């Protein structure tokens, strides 16, 4: 558990610092949390230095191979030590750096969040877990870069960093999943031992490239280097911590961690080495021309990350050993230099090297520290930077896979070293020497000692490691490199003096060349200027992003112009294209092997009538009444076709829905214009005809292909179990109320919701129907026809009886709740039509809302009822009763459910039609007055 607490403590405790108002308490709590983690880590030290690897594992989601597992390898220990050690120094530094106006508690919260995620990366045993922490660092880095969220550059820098590292993270997830699937485990211990399996697999190149993408974006390798300099908009403690010492090292950490499995192929060499070399040179070159202190340091960081990448790319054990050593050295001097840059910024108000000069007079201690740091950065002997740099230069001389072009590597490395010396000299000389500056925003002075302390500690370490490498650094580097390389770890003696060799010559060239470059800097600046126009990564990034946004906007504008016609045309067109496309690549015939059945004359005639009526609906659609009549005919033939093809339930449903639909359309037409004007151009009409013929033809072809092929249905199950399981012989109805009862419940819910929405839309809304028809004739003002009214009134009880019959027999014969509900609704509507709303409304006083609601309540209650007696929701049960006169009678709980369906259908259909019918404002007036009159009469009678 102690092991898991190392990363979890900062994550869980992240919120604590923001609970306090006092800035000292903020820093103190954050420091305490990091300190406890550090102690827990140090408890692991004896085991780690003994060559063991403590492991702690809990099963989390075993089905996807995710374990909550942590390990402390030597390399992980070194990194965790760096993260916590520098983290503690940053906590102190930030206490003095962050001003009183900024929310310091929140800053420490983000910082701890980041610290925990970063520890999680270096200590994870499971790579899925590692991935989660990886993403967490991207997010916490986003929050930290954007800490001064009122600044545009902070927001842009944060967004850029998130897009680049988050995007790389996505690639890496894919790479990790592939890796885990190839190896068969997501545990690092297994993965690290599976080099042969991975290299033999055909997906190795894809896996490698995806993982490298993740690592390169995180470590700001070319061509993703540009996000890091812009992340410098962050407060300096963040830059010192995340963007020099820790987070950007996560990429090279990963490269080194997976070095034993991923490396060793030519592909690895050909990708990693050039990327490292280009990054090293390009960033060192860019660093020379940065006027911003932090910009210089940022590019220098990118360059050093390139150096580490290059070393890992070279692939030899000693190169990996050197990479580990340089990670350590670079973290020490770069974090210190960032802190010093922050101090200069803090105490002078600027970090522009064109304005800063001659600070030595005011800040001699800061100046000395900066000199030490820059000496380490430049690789001056007696500093730690010199040691790893010389080892690096020696490594570049080893033969490599570039063959005849092997010289590129050492030459490039030396050139980059020259640049590094030049920018290091510039940082010291431009800032602290030359004439004292006169126009600084603040009067410069030394910072409070607490702010300088962390840099002092780090610079002391740089110097001491440079002087006594074997005592101070070698044990840690050996353990760390040993955990990566295993038996292949070189027995290397780190020393200042290796004799007169090529690497020393290269160091000397670098120092001399760098000094010369610095002296000639004015000429260099000129030649650099034109180059900047093309190499500005940020401008390219922003141009790319705005291009994407504009392109997206254009595309949206093209497709989403607010015209329903265009949407439907695009939708239908897309469906036709998508539906047709598989047929073009296929050699299978469209028509399958089954023979078609013969056509009888009646069916043929009906089919032709349907076609004629459907076409007539279109041809006459401007004459709306005629179109409705044609449409009604189509609907009738559709219901007849259901009878013809053995579906009496559907026929009954269709014909009753047909009635209410046509009534609905007629009522709507009463309030809408009766004709449709000619609007579309003929070209538009032809396009639409083409599109609809394609859609219709496509469906015909598709259905033909289906119908002429044999099929296998699951209906057998329903047919077998309908009677014994559901207690009914009408399988369609048993499916509705029993097998698929839950679906039906959802469907009547939709029906009820539709009814309510329609009611809401029509509530308090008035439309006045025109007083004249399309031809200008006034509407007839006659009373309702008497014969119709007299016939329909006695019809009502008969129809209700019939509905009851249909309802009751539904479980065993065609019928059921849906159909009975529709019949009742139609007959009620008939009363409204024949006798008018004024007569009918007072006689049908039951509120349709209530009916509808009861329907749902009963349906749900039936379901819950089976719950109560211990069965799953909506399980039906049935029994047989013997009634006198009627005979044996079956009672199923499903019938109660069907009653719910019935009521919901009646209620919602009535709700819609009655509401729509009483909407015409002129009619509504009559209704309200007549209802009032009737009430008055009744009251008078009492």
């Amino acid at each position, binding site marked *: 558990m102690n092991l898991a607490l190392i990363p979890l403590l900062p994550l869980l405790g992240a919120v604590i610092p923001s609970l306090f108002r006092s800035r000292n308490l903020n820093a103190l709590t954050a420091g305490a949390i990091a300190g406890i983690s550090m102690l827990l880590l140090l408890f692991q030290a004896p085991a780690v230095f003994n060559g063991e690897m403590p492991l702690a594992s809990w099963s989390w989601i075993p089905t996807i191979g995710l374990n909550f597992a942590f390990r402390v390898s030597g390399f992980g220990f070194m990194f965790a030590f760096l993260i916590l050690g520098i983290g503690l120094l940053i906590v102190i530094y930030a206490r003095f750096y962050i001003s009183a106006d900024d929310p310091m508690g929140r800053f420490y919260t983000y910082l701890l969040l980041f610290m925990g995620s970063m520890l999680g990366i270096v200590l994870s045993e499971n790579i899925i877990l590692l991935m989660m922490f990886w993403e967490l660092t991207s997010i916490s880095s986003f929050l930290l870069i954007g800490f001064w969220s009122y600044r545009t550059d902070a927001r842009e820098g944060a967004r850029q960093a998130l897009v680049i590292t988050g995007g790389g993270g996505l690639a890496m997830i894919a790479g990790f999943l592939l890796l885990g699937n190839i190896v068969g485990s997501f545990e690092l211990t297994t993965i690290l031992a599976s080099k042969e399996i991975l290299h033999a697999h055909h997906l190795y190149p894809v896996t490698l490239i995806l993982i490298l993408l993740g690592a390169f974006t995180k470590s700001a390798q070319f061509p993703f280097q540009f996000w890091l300099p812009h992340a410098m908009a962050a407060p300096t403690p963040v830059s010192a911590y995340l963007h020099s010492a820790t987070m950007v090292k996560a990429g090279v950490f990963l490269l080194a961690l997976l070095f034993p499995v991923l490396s060793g192929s030519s592909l690895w060499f050909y990708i990693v080495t050039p990327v490292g070399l280009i990054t090293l040179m390009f960033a060192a070159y860019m660093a020379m021309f940065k006027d911003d202190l932090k910009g210089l340091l940022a590019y220098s960081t990118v360059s050093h990350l390139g150096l580490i990448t290059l070393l890992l790319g070279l692939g030899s054990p000693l190169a990996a050993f050197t990479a580990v050593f340089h990670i350590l050295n670079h973290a020490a001097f770069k974090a210190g230099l960032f802190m010093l840059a922050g101090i200069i910024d803090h105490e002078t108000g600027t970090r522009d090297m064109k304005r800063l000069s001659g600070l030595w007079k005011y800040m001699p201690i800061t100046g000395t520290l900066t000199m030490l740091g820059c000496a380490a950065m430049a690789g001056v002997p007696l500093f730690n930077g010199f040691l790893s740099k010389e080892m690096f230069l020696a490594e570049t001389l080893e033969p490599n896979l570039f063959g005849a072009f092997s010289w590129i590597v050492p030459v490039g490395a030396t050139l980059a070293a020259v640049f590094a010396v030049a920018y290091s000299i510039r940082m010291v000389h431009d800032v602290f020497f030359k004439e004292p500056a006169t126009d600084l925003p603040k009067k410069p002075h030394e910072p409070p000692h607490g702010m300088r302390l962390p840099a002092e500690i780090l610079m002391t370490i740089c110097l001491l490691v440079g002087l006594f490498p074997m005592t101070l650094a070698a044990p840690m580097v050996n353990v760390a490199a040993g955990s990566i390389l295993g038996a292949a770890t070189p027995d290397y003696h780190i020393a200042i003096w290796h004799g007169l060799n090529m690497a020393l010559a290269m160091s000397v060239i670098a120092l001399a060349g760098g000094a010369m470059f610095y002296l000639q800097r004015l000429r260099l600046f000129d030649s650099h200027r034109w180059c900047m126009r093309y190499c500005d990564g940020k401008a390219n990034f922003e141009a790319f992003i705005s291009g994407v946004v504009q392109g997206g906007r254009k595309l949206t504008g093209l497709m989403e112009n*607010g*015209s329903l*016609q265009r949407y*439907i045309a695009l939708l*239908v067109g897309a469906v036709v294209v998508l539906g047709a496309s598989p047929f073009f690549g296929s050699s299978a015939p469209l028509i399958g092997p089954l023979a078609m059945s013969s056509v009888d004359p009646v069916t043929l005639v009906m089919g032709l009538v*349907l*076609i004629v009526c*459907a*076409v007539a*609906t279109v041809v006459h*659609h401007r004459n709306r009444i005629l*179109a409705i009549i044609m*449409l009604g005919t*189509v609907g009738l033939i559709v219901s007849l*076709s259901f009878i013809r*093809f*053995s*579906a009496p*339930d*559907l026929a009954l*449903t*269709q014909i009753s829905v047909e009635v209410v639909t046509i009534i*609905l*359309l007629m009522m*709507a037409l009463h*309030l*809408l214009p009766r004709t*449709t*004007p000619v*609007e579309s151009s003929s070209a538009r009409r032809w396009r*639409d005809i083409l*599109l*609809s013929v394609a859609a219709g*033809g496509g*469906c*015909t072809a598709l259905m*033909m292909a289906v*119908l002429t092929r044999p*099929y296998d249905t699951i*209906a057998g199950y329903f*047919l077998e179990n309908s*009677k014994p399981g559901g207690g009914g*012989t*009408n*399988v*369609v109805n048993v*499916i*509705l109320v029993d097998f698929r009862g839950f679906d039906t419940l959802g469907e009547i819910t*939709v*029906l009820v919701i*539709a*009814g309510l929405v*329609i009611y809401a*839309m029509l509530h308090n*809304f008035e*439309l006045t129907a025109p007083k004249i028809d399309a031809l200008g004739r006034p509407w007839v003002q006659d009373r309702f026809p008497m014969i119709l009214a007299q016939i329909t009134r006695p019809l009502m009880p008969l129809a209700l009886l019939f509905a009851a019959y249909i309802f009751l027999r539904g479980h065993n*014969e065609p019928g059921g709740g*849906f159909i009975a509900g529709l019949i009742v609704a139609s007959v009620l509507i008939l009363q409204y039509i024949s006798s008018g709303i004024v007569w009918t409304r007072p006689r049908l006083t039951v509120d349709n809302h209530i009916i509808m609601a009861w329907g749902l309540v009963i349906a749900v209650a039936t379901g819950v009822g089976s719950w109560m007696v211990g069965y799953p929701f909506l399980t039906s049960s049935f029994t047989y009763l013997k009634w006198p006169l009627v005979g044996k009678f079956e009672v199923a709980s499903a019938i109660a459910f069907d009653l719910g369906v019935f009521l919901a259908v009646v209620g919602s259909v009535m709700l*819609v039609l009655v509401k*729509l019918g009483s909407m015409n404002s002129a009619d509504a007036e009559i209704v309200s007055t007549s209802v009032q009159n009737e009430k008055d009469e009744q009251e008078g009678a009492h």
Partner: protein
Amino acid sequence: MELLFTSCLGVMIACGVYLMLRARTFPFVLGLTLLGYAVNMFLFVSGRLKTNLPAVVSPEQLQYTDPLPQALVLTAIVIGFAMVAFVVVLALRASGELGTDHVDGHKENNS
């Protein structure tokens, strides 16, 4: 028979789509209704065209029609009605609010 059935279906879909591409709400509703018929039949016929076969189980009967598409289509018919009713009322409300029955609410045709 299959060819006749699918041709009817294709004609209904073509007519429905054409009407839905018109610029006024009423033809749109007509088209939606037609398309609704066609889609229901499309689903229904996936259980194949059977003549004179019941979906009611009895001991003598050996062959049955496929009851599953029928059950699915039955509710689809009712839901289809609810949808048409909804669109009709939306069209009414829109014409009341906007003073036009154009599908995009344009007073004049400029689509």
